[in-house]
């Protein structure tokens, strides 16, 4: 069953998002074929990206829009997160995070992208994917979670 939800308020999006996952965890909506572990991994990955948007995205004069779409596809569940911010230089941020964790004294923060890449499959960031009628842009992050993969990370904290 595809699930697509829009969020407009950056101050409540995290709680609303987790409320949605709690419904799935309670079995009110199916995210087959994910088991409980991988459902938690999906939640963790979605949280990391939306947290990144809340903290760092520049939405300019636009009313923020974050759209999360999750769809089972065979043995995987595909996730797409679109937003109308000005986007990120994803590769630049990724290189910064990789360099930071390899430092002698790694910082406490700045591992979100590395964690997301490690615990998902086919993670890609597209910018911009569409121009809206109001002239705003849409950026999109996509990734999948496999039902039979038990990911683990080796990222130093």
């Amino acid at each position: 069953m595809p699930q697509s939800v829009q969020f407009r308020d950056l101050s409540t999006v995290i709680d609303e998002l987790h409320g949605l996952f709690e419904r799935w965890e309670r079995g009110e909506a199916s995210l087959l074929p994910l088991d409980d572990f991988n459902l938690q991994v999906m939640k963790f990955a979605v949280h990391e990206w939306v947290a990144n948007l809340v903290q760092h995205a520049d939405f300019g004069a636009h009313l923020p829009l974050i759209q999360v779409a999750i769809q089972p596809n065979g043995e995987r569940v595909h996730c797409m997160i679109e937003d109308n911010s000005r986007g990120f230089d994803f590769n630049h941020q990724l290189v910064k995070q990789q360099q930071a964790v390899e430092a002698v004294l790694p910082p406490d923060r700045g591992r979100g992208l590395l964690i997301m890449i490690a615990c998902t499959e086919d993670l890609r960031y597209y910018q911009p994917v569409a121009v809206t009628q109001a002239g705003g842009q849409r950026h999109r992050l996509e990734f999948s979670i496999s039902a039979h993969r038990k990911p683990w990370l080796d990222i130093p904290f």
Partner: protein
Amino acid sequence: MSITIQNASADTAVVCIGKALDFRNAKDFKEACQSRIQDGIRNFVLDFSGTGILDSTGLGAIFSLYRQLTPLGGQVVFAAVSRPVQVVVQLTRTYKVFRQYPTVTAAHEQILSRSTTNGSRAGAA
């Protein structure tokens, strides 16, 4: 999303994490722990019984606390770990660093017994 801390003994505090430890309250967590460290607390039991969210920022704050306490002979342990937190712990292999206990009481007892053992050794030496 308030974090509450209670002293369990002279050098040990129990931190009730509550619903979440993430980018929204990681700074509060660090400041609250910092204040207790200045008061002489060296061991922290993190009670995750009601926690639905632990993200990379929250985990970073815990590691920061760990790095500060280890040279002081202190420790950070996890208690009553909820399922969402357990998955993050497994995913990040954090279980290699932080011991886990089924309850806050069990965690505190272990810390007390460790303190007693270390105290006895110090006395014998």
